[in-house]
């Protein structure tokens, strides 16, 4: 029979290879799923993975990839730090919403002033909003030992209600004659987060995402906090003996992930989304969890995973309009990707060994 034998140390080769294998397996399984749905699997995979990059309208889609990937990467980088340390913030969606609300409110307080300082101030307010929302589960966890997974998640539902009240009430555009939704922040010069280079889709959020990837990489490899994070994740007891302050680490991880999620929300509301509306929340906070794992909780990996995930969204929409592929098929496809990744991950930590039956296990 085949048994698993723990490797003395995780295999570096498999760490890099397993995502590739997982993507390959997902392509096969996804193709089968599309075929089962009555679509030509090759046409579907082509519409999702090839057309946005190299097809007729790639000039448009490539920019859209960056727009879609930036918030995912920004949020996932923060989440990954926590996940590495065993700190489970799964309420990034709520922090994303509150960040957008805080930033938009801060900016609109100065409407219609014309100042270059307003956008930076809004970004800071967005980060602060995300941090504040993340501090609730973090402090409850540190102070009372309350389960941070559940609290951070419950706060997503609270944040959604906050968003609704902002859109119909306290942030409503006074000029929109009774319709919900805030002023259009992307059209107010002081708050707009426009494309930095025309046609590329790259707005300030894309720049921030790249910066976050580099900063997180430096933090993890060069900084003592990064070492503490890695140590706590790998061996919590050893970390405690080594003098790592567990509580402080939890607060740090939540602050970073909440702040980045809040900033992602702010970049979105001042750029691609344009305004606070009831439907502003778009699930980036949840998808970023997949991105974090798909990227092996590694900043560079997350960069690639975020782009891949964005490709499945943009390509998925493309397949939906051009081939009539159901949008839901894409989310099932993304779920499969994560399953396969987790499944092949076993090869990183274990060796498959053939052992004849009868030998004592």
């Amino acid at each position, binding site marked *: 029979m085949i048994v698993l034998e723990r490797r003395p140390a995780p295999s570096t080769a498999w760490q890099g290879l397993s995502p590739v294998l997982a993507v390959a397996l997902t392509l096969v399984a996804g193709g089968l799923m599309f075929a089962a749905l009555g679509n030509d699997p090759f046409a579907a995979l082509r519409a999702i993975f090839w057309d946005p990059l190299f097809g007729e*309208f790639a*000039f*448009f889609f490539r920019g*859209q990839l960056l*727009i879609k990937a930036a918030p995912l990467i920004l949020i996932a980088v923060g989440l990954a730090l926590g996940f590495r340390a065993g700190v489970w913030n799964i309420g990034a969606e709520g922090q994303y919403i509150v960040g957008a609300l805080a930033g938009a409110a801060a900016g609109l307080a100065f409407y219609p002033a014309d100042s270059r300082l307003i956008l930076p101030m809004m970004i800071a307010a967005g980060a602060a909003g995300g941090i504040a929302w993340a501090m609730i589960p973090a402090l409850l966890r540190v102070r009372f030992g309350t389960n941070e997974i559940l609290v951070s998640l419950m706060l997503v539902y609270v944040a959604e209600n906050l968003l*609704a*009240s902002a859109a*119909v*009430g306290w942030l*409503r555009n006074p000029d*929109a*004659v*009774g*319709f*919900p*939704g805030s002023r*259009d922040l992307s059209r107010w010069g002081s708050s*707009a987060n*426009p*494309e930095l280079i*025309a*046609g590329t889709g790259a707005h300030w959020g894309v720049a921030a995402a790249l910066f976050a990837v580099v900063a997180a990489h430096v933090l993890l490899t060069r900084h003592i906090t990064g070492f503490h994070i890695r140590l706590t994740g790998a061996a919590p007891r050893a970390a405690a003996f080594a003098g790592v302050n567990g509580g402080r680490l939890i607060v740090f991880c939540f602050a970073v992930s909440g702040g980045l999620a809040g900033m992602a929300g702010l970049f*979105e509301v001042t750029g*691609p*989304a*344009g*305004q606070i*509306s*009831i*439907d*502003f929340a*778009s699930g980036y906070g949840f998808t970023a969890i997949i991105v974090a794992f798909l990227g092996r909780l590694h900043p560079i990996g997350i960069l690639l995973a975020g782009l891949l995930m964005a490709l499945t969204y*943009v390509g998925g*929409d*493309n397949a*939906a*309009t*051009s081939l009539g592929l159901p*949008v839901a098929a894409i989310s099932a496809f993304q779920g499969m990707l994560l399953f396969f990744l987790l499944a092949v991950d076993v090869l990183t930590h274990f060796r498959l060994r053939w052992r004849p039956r009868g030998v004592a296990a």
Partner: protein
Amino acid sequence: MTSKTILSTVLALGLAGSALADGHEPVKVGFVYVGPIGDGGWTYQHDQGRLAVEEEFGDAVETVYQELVPEGADAERVITQMALQGADLIFTTSFGYGPATNAVAARFPDVKFEHATGFMREHPNVSTYDARFYEGRAVTGHIAGNLTETNKIGYIASFPIPEVIQGINSSFLHAQKVNPDVEMVVTWVYTWFDPSKEADAARAMIDQGVDVILQHTDSTAPQSAAEEANANGGRVFTFGQASDMAEFKPTPRVASIIDEWSPYYIERVQAVIDGTWEQTAHWGGMPEGEVVIGEITDAVPAEVKAEAEDMVARITEGEYHPFTGPINRQDGTPWLAEGEVADDATLATMDFYVEGVTGQIPN
């Protein structure tokens, strides 16, 4: 922003070249839906309109659609994609697509855009269209006022926007006309389509003694909740919303307000084919055949049914406007004097209850 526009103009000229220019290709019409086609309500009716366009024009048109498109940044991408892929006319069928529709319209000046229930027309190639649902609400309000025994009618409201507030006011005024003691219970669910929330809201209303439920949300869940209450000895009536919801006839569903988009869709596609399309802000109702009252079942007393049908006829003929004074605002201040008719501008921005409605509009 400017550089974006320049680039986009280049794109638009190069790629979105209209099918009409060469006159050979079929006209391509895109539809962007907020819900699933199977919602049995709002999106379903828009899709019926799309099918009517296909039926009418046959091979002369090609339609494409995408359902479940979130409002916001994703909508902009989907609309752009349709424009890039050669659509000549795009209907965006939800209020929240307004900014996205206008943003894409700026980049594709040769493509025509039609945005449902909105008010933003920032470019000459964007029209808006809506239907006077309050005309239907007057009829259902009249029936509701007659049917209620507890004198409590419920209104499941989606979002506090003028269209919904018009509906609440119109149905309340006409219920009150036939039943001065009537009270209106408004529950805001903050969704257009969420069967669970709608069913919960309906049940809570029934538990509170409401016996007629009007809904401004699109699922049939409130109908199911009423049916269940009736199966257990209750006496609750409902009205179909957006589509006929005929499977709940003859009770609890006693009538319905149907959104009939086909006439407008056919007219606008024809205009594009003829090259006569121009920007409009269309607001049709019963006279245009866009707001239709579905079959009034026998659960409604014959004389009430006759009155309701008479009201439909008078509204259709333009003899009666559901907002005809004297009407006071909720705080008792006069709004319309005796015989005065509400103007469209006030209706389109309505943000107040009329006298007699209790509670406050959330803000």
